[in-house]
Structure formats: C-alpha cells, structure tokens
C-alpha cells in the first residue's frame, strides 16, 4: 500500500482508539446511572443516548456541522482557545465520533451493570466497601465482558463511520481523511485496485477483531451466579 492509503488507515485506527477511550470514561458513569436510577428521567436519557442508532448519519452530521461551526458558541470558544476550527479538523471528528458511537458504549455497559444487580454491591457494602471501591473491585470485574463488548463495538463502529465524518470532517489527507472516506473517493475516481486493498483490509480487520472477542468470551466464561 502507498503512503496515503496507510495514512488514512492509521488515522481511522487512531480516531477509533481515541474515541473509545473517551467514551469508556464518559459512558461508564452514564451507563451506571441508567442501570441503577429509579428516576423518571431515565427513558428520556435512554432515548437521547439511542438517537445515533436510528438517525441517518447525514442528519446527525448536519446538526454537528452546525453546532461545531465557528458561528456557534461551542465552535467560537474552540477557535478562541485553540486557534483552529472544530469543523474539518481531527478534534471535530473526535467530538462527532463520541456522539455518534455513544450507544455502542452505553448499551452494552448498561445491560452488563443490570446483570450484575444490587446483590454483590450490597455484599460489598456489608463488608465495609464504600461505593467507588465496590464499583471498582466488584461491579467492574463482574461486568468485564460488558466492558470488552462496549470497547470493541465502539472501536469497530468508529472505524466504520462514514456519513458523519464526511459531513463534519470533509476529506483532508492526514487530518480527516479516514479509511472509509478514502475508499469512497477511490471508487468515485474509479481506482478500484486501491479501493479493493483498503476494503479488504477493513473486512479482515473487523472479522479478526470480532472473532477474537467471541473466542475470549467463550474461553473465559464468567461465573456470575
């Protein structure tokens, strides 16, 4: 593969890794709250979280483009702080990906936390563990598979993202030209050989990743009850 192809592949992986880390940090408390709250706000928050699943990426991308543009408060603040714009930049792609992939982090984690239930946490509290201690040392290990699933789905989904990236990031080599955009452009310009190389690479990568996850799940079943 040539340098531009490799750079778009690298950019995709880098974006996906960055997004996954941010989403695990933000999504864990959100999923924990959703799994345990008796609040009447829960369905509202759940619906908002699931929106990226059903909205066409172009719709999401369009609103993000508006929200991140230098004319918006957020975009203006970003320009003032960093000197660059959020739109058509790597930072903008990260923000967009975090929103776009949110349900892929939150939903597996929420079901994993629900499966853990109250019982082990009560046991931990009865042994003197404060809530954060109980979360880190009991709930999180018991929900380990949920974390694995969430991380893999988020990562893979971000790698495969297209519409939102196109709307928010455009097609700047080395900055926003991720692998899916590169494939699109090769096809547009009838450079099928290059398109094939990247597409096949992505296919093999996704398959390998998913198979590894299922193999791990099979090999290390968690005995929760």
């Amino acid at each position: 593969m040539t340098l531009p192809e490799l750079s778009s592949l690298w950019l995709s992986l880098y974006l996906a890794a960055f997004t996954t880390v941010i989403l695990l940090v933000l999504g864990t408390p959100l999923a924990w709250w959703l799994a345990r709250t008796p609040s009447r706000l829960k369905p509202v928050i759940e619906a908002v979280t699931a929106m990226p699943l059903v909205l066409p990426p172009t719709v999401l991308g369009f609103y993000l483009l508006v929200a991140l543009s230098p004319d918006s408060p957020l975009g203006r603040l970003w320009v003032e702080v960093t000197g660059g714009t959020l739109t058509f930049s790597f930072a903008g792609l990260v923000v967009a990906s975090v929103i776009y992939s949110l349900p892929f982090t939150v939903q597996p984690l929420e079901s994993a936390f629900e499966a853990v239930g109250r019982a082990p946490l009560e046991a931990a509290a009865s042994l003197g563990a404060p809530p954060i201690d109980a979360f880190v040392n009991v709930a999180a290990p018991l929900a380990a598979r949920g974390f694995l699933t969430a991380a893999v789905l988020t990562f893979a989904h971000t790698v495969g993202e297209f519409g939102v990236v196109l709307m928010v990031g455009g097609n700047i080599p080395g900055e926003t030209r991720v692998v899916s955009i590169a494939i699109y452009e090769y096809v547009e310009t009838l450079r099928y050989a290059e398109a094939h190389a990247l597409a096949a690479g992505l296919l093999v990568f996704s398959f390998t990743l998913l198979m590894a996850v299922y193999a791990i799940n099979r090999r290390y079943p968690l005995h929760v009850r």
Partner: protein
Amino acid sequence: MSAERLSLEVRVRHPGFELVVAEELALDGFTAVFGPSGSGKSTLLRAVAGFETPLDGRIAWNGEVWFDAAARVNLAPHRRPVGFMFQDGRLFPHLNVAENLAFAQRRRRGAGPARDEVVTALDLGGLLHRRVHSLSGGERQRVALGRTLLRGPSLLLLDEPLAALDRQRKTEILPYLESVPARFRVPTLYVSHDIDEVARLADRVVVLAEGRVQTVGPTAAVMERLDLQPLTGSFEGGVLVEGRLRGHDPRLHLSQVELGGGVLATPLLERLAPGQAVRLRIRARDVALATVRPEGLSIRNVLPGELVEIVDEPETGFVEAFVRLDGEGPPTRLRARITRAAVEDLRLEPGRRVFALIKSVSFESFDPH
C-alpha cells in the same frame, strides 16, 4: 459478655405490606427473629444493615445513631459496624475463597479476629484456593460466614443463612454457626422461619407476624406460649430445658443428665465432659403423667414434680399439662400432652403431686451460651 443495646423504632412500607417495630433489644449471644415468610423479618434485618431506608423512625446501636428520620441521619451501610450474611452467601464469583476473605479483612476499620482464627473455627483451610463456583452450598455458607466475621463486626446479622440448604448440609453447618457468638464475642441477630433452628440456636426470640412484633423473650419461654402456636406450630409442642451432664455408662450406652432434682438417662454422648451444660428438648407428646411412682415400667425416666396448670386443646381430646419439676435453682417446667379422659380419671388439677414419665429426649445443643 455484657448485653449490648439495639434500639429499633422503624416503619418500612412496601406495596401491600407495612413493618412497624418499636423495640429496645438487649443483645448478646444468639437472638432469633422468627416468623412466617412475609412477616417482615428480612426487611427488619435489612433496615438495621442500612439496605432498607425506613419511612420514619430511629435505629441506634449502643447509643450510636445509625438512622434518624427526624434528624435526617442515615448512616451508609458500609459505615455501620455490622456483618451481614445473606441467604445465598453472595460470595464474589470473580475472587477465590482466600480473596473473598481478604476483601473483608482489608476493609475493616476496627479490631477483628485473625484470619487463622476464622479459618480454623470454620474449617476453611482446605477451601482457600477453591473457586467460588466449585463450592457446595454448605461450604459456600461457611466461607460467607467467615468473610462476614473477618469484617470485624460489632453486630452480626444473619439472614436465613441455612434456608437454601438441604437438611444434611444444615446439620453440617449448624455446629459452626452455633459457636460463633461466644467464640468471636459478637452478638448475633438471626432471621429464620425454621422453629427447629431457632430452638437449637437462639437464647432469645423476637416473634414477628404481619409486620408486627408479637413477643420478645427467652427461647424456652416463647416456645411454651400456647397462644403463639399458630406461629410456632411447626415446632412440635414441647419445652427446652437446661441440664448438666453427670456421667456416662458405656455398657448400657447411656449418659446421665441432672435435671430438676432428678437424673435423666439419655442416649450416650461420649464426646461431652461431665459437668457440661446441655440443652434438651422434650416434646409434650413424649411425656406421660402418673399420680404414684410407677413400677414395672420400661420407661426409665421418671421425675417428680407438681402439676401447675392444665390448658385445653380446643376441639381435640387432649390437654396440655404443665409440671414444675422438684429441685433447687430456677424451676424447670415440662409439658405433657395427655387426654382429657385421663385428667378426669386421675382427677388431675393444679397443685397435685405427679410423676412425669419421659419417653424420649432429644439434644438441641451441647454448649448453651
């Protein structure tokens, strides 16, 4: 061990159920919270542990307030110095036995038993490296009990710890459970709907029904209360009495127990030392009465006493007769279930001298606290 005080004043409401308790309990040794399922026993225990927040009321332990609705005090469960053992053990499945024990020990704030002491007392040595899911039900509960003890609690709360076990496993774990309050000097509040367990373990019983406390008292006295029989009914009517072992007769395969001025022959119990206190359960239907000392009788256990009360058993041909045995010290009472016809024939009435003939005796516990 001086008694510690748990003051309870709680109202907990669940759909279709309300628990209202106002009791000042002096706790040492084993105190059972007994009642049918749905009577609110577990809810009460969970409120003490802090897993359940009462609508209003106050919970204090030796004057230290854990919950006070009026003062808006609600100490988080992990800050209350209680050990809570669950019906299903709730061992952490991602840790092995030793790690489960260490989890509790690492987090304890005050003093507590050494790990080795707990491991020895509960025979956990062979289990330390086992995964939790490979343990049997009885082993799991032993580990759970050990883990709870290692937390160093000043009050032990046991929520039906034997309910999930079959009879054989129960018999295996009972001796371990029995020794805990004395050995680890921790007063224990124990929820159970099994009257036999209560009879064997508890020094004191709180009887709960439909969310209200029916009575609180020493186990033997509560068991005797006829008005509570609809609740304690599954316990075959009888009494718990305390005697002292006098000696053994291996040839006849008997042991002798001093009781109420007389001596009872019981099945041989060689592992007990003479002088040791024993708790016996004598069922009312195993006691017959005679007005003169009988002779030429196969029943060996004949104890003299005085008839104190006769209570009718409605709609049957039976009555329950209470007999106070002769002897020094606190009075020992027996219950005899005899026919109304016998009462009339023998002209039995309170005040009458009688001989209690005891057909069989079962041991409930060998080391009353």
